[in-house]
C-alpha cells in the first residue's frame, strides 16, 4: 500500500474560475521522495495544502487523498489534527512569518510534543533542545528561550524543520523550504533535510521551482503546469530526456553553463508558449 495516494484531485476557488489543480493523481511510497516542480501559480502549494487539509475555507475540493489507507479529504478536523504534526508534517516557504511572534521558540517546538504525546516538562525540554541541536542550531539552550524575531531567517527555518521532524513523521511536505534563504544557508538547510529524511526514513513531497534543488533531494519528479501534471518520472530521466516542451524550457533556462556568451539567455517561452494565458 502506498503511503500517500492522491486520485483525481481537483481544487478551485470560487465558482466559474479556472481550477487551481486539475485531475491530479500521484502516489508516494514509504521513504520515497517526490519532487514537484513548476512556476509560481502552477498549483504546487495548493496541492500541498490540499493534502494537509489546510486550504482556505472558500476552496472547493474533489477527488480523494489517502494517507496510509485513511481518507484525508472530508475527514473531521479533529481526526486530521491528530495526524498533522505527528505522521504528516509540513515545512513552509516563509520562515520569517511561520512562527508565532509572541511565543518563545522552545515553547512552540514543545507544543508539537505536548499535542501528541504524554511527556513531562523536563523531558519535553530535553527533547526540544536535543532536536534543535540536531538541526544544527548553535547554543540550543539559548534558542529555546528566544523569541522568533531574535533569530535569523535560516535559524527560524531550522526551528520549523525541527518542529516538522520532532516526532519522526512518515511524510514531510516541504513547500519551497529554501526559497526565502540566502544561497549559502540554502545549501546547509538542504543538506540537513536530506540527512534527516534519511535518518528517519521519512517520505517527502518536495516542492520547488528549482530543478537543481529537486535533483539533489528527490528520486522522482513531477512537472506541474497550470494546475496539471505535464510530465513525471525518475529525476535522471526527466532531466536528461525531457518530453514536454515546458520541461525542456525549464531545463534550458537552468543550464546557464551551456549558454553562448554574449547571446540572449533562453526563456521558458522559447520552448513552450502555452503557459502564458
Amino acid at each position, binding site marked *: 500500500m502506498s503511503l500517500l495516494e492522491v486520485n483525481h484531485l481537483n481544487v478551485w476557488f470560487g465558482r466559474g474560475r479556472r481550477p487551481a489543480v486539475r485531475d491530479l493523481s500521484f502516489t508516494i511510497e514509504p521513504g520515497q521522495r517526490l519532487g514537484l516542480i513548476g512556476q509560481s501559480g502552477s498549483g504546487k502549494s495548493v496541492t500541498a495544502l490540499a493534502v494537509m487539509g489546510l486550504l482556505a475555507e472558500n476552496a472547493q475540493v474533489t477527488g480523494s487523498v489517502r494517507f496510509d489507507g485513511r481518507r484525508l479529504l472530508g475527514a473531521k478536523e479533529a481526526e486530521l*489534527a491528530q495526524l498533522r504534526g*505527528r505522521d504528516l508534517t509540513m515545512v*513552509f516557504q516563509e520562515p520569517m512569518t*511561520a512562527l*508565532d*511572534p509572541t511565543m518563545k521558540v522552545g515553547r512552540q517546538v514543545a507544543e508539537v510534543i505536548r499535542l*501528541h504525546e504524554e511527556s513531562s516538562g523536563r523531558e519535553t525540554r530535553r527533547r526540544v533542545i536535543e532536536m534543535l541541536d540536531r538541526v544544527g542550531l548553535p547554543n540550543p539552550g539559548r534558542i529555546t528561550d528566544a523569541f522568533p*524575531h*531574535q533569530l535569523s531567517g535560516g535559524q527560524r527555518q531550522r526551528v520549523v524543520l525541527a*518542529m516538522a521532524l520532532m516526532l519522526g513523521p512518515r511524510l514531510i511536505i516541504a513547500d519551497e523550504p529554501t526559497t526565502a534563504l540566502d544561497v549559502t544557508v540554502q545549501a546547509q538547510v538542504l543538506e540537513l533535510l536530506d540527512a534527516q529524511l534519511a535518518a528517519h526514513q521519512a517520505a517527502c513531497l518536495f516542492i520547488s521551482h528549482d530543478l537543481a534543488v529537486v535533483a539533489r533531494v528527490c528520486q522522482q519528479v513531477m512537472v506541474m503546469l497550470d494546475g496539471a501534471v505535464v510530465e513525471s518520472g525518475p529525476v535522471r530521466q526527466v532531466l536528461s530526456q525531457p518530453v514536454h516542451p515546458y520541461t525542456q524550457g525549464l531545463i534550458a533556462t537552468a543550464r546557464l553553463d551551456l549558454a553562448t556568451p554574449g547571446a540572449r539567455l533562453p526563456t521558458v517561452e522559447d520552448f513552450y508558449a502555452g503557459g502564458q494565458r
Partner: protein
Amino acid sequence: MAVAQTIVRRVGVFVLSLLGATVVVFLIVQALPGDVAQATLGMAATPEQVEALRERWGLNRPAWARYVSWLGGLFQGDLGQSYLTGQSVSGQIGPRLAVTCQLVGLSMPIAVLASVPTGLVAAMWRRRWQGVVTSALSQIGMAAPIFFVGIVLVVVFAVRLNWLPANGYNPLLGPAGFDLAGWGSHLVLPVASLVIVQASLLSRYVRNGFVEVLAEDYLRTARAVGWTKWRALVRHGLRNAALSIVTVIALQISAMLVGAIIVEQVFALPGLGSLLLQAVASRDLPVVRGIAILLVVVVLAISLVADLVYVLIDPRLRSREAQ
C-alpha cells in the same frame, strides 16, 4: 533594560502631556463667554456689586497669575472652590465620580468579556449564517444611539414589565444601611445600555483583529503541527489579536466616560456628567476645569497603561533590536 527605558519614557510623556493639558484646559475655560459674577448676581445687580464679587474671586488678576495659582493648587490636590456653592471642587466631584466609576467600571469588563467570544464567532464563521448574524447584530448595536437604547430598555423593562426601576440611584451604603439589591437594581439598565453599545463596537474590532490573524502564516503552522482550527486561534491568535484590540479598548474606556454622561441623563444618575452640565450652564468655572482636568488625567493614564500592556504582550517591543 529596554523595558525600564520604555516605562520611564512613557511616564515622562504622561507628565508632559498633563502639563500641556492644564494650559489648554485653562485657556478654553477662560475663553468661555459670559461673566460668572454677573451670572451669579443676576441682571439686577449694580456694577459695584459685580466688581466686588470679581475682586473676591480673584477674577481681576491677570490670567497667568490665576493659572499659576490654579496649577499650584492642582499639585496639592486642591482644585479650588465652587463659585456657586463655595464648597471645594474636589468635594463636589468625589461622590459624582464614584457613581460614574461604578457605571464604567461595571460596563467595560462586561463589554470586553462579551465582545471576545462574539468577535471570535463572527470571524471564524464569517462565511456562514452564524457569523453573518453576529456581525449584523453588532452593526445594529453600533449604529443605535445610546440614549435610544437606554429609553427602549426603560420602556420594556421598567414601564411594561415593571421588573426594574426606571431611573434614580441608590447608594450601596445608604441611610438604610447596606443595600445591595437597591443599588444593583438601579444600575442594571444603565449598565446594560452602555454594554450593548460598547460590546457591539468592540466585537466588531475583535472580529477584524481575528480575521487579520486568521490569514497569518503562524496560524497555518499551528494547525500543521496538530492544533485544530479553533484551538489554534485561541492558542496563537488571541495574544496577537489582542495587540490591536488593546488600543481600541483603551480608546473606548475614554469614549465610555462620555457615553456615561448621556446615560446618566437618561437614568437620572448623579454622576460626573450631570455635574459637568450644571457647572457649564451656571459658568461655575472651577468645577468645569476640575472635571476637565480629571478626564484628561484618566485618558492619559489609560493610554499609559495600554502602552505598558503592549510591552507585556509583544516581545518585539521588549528587546532593543526590535525590527
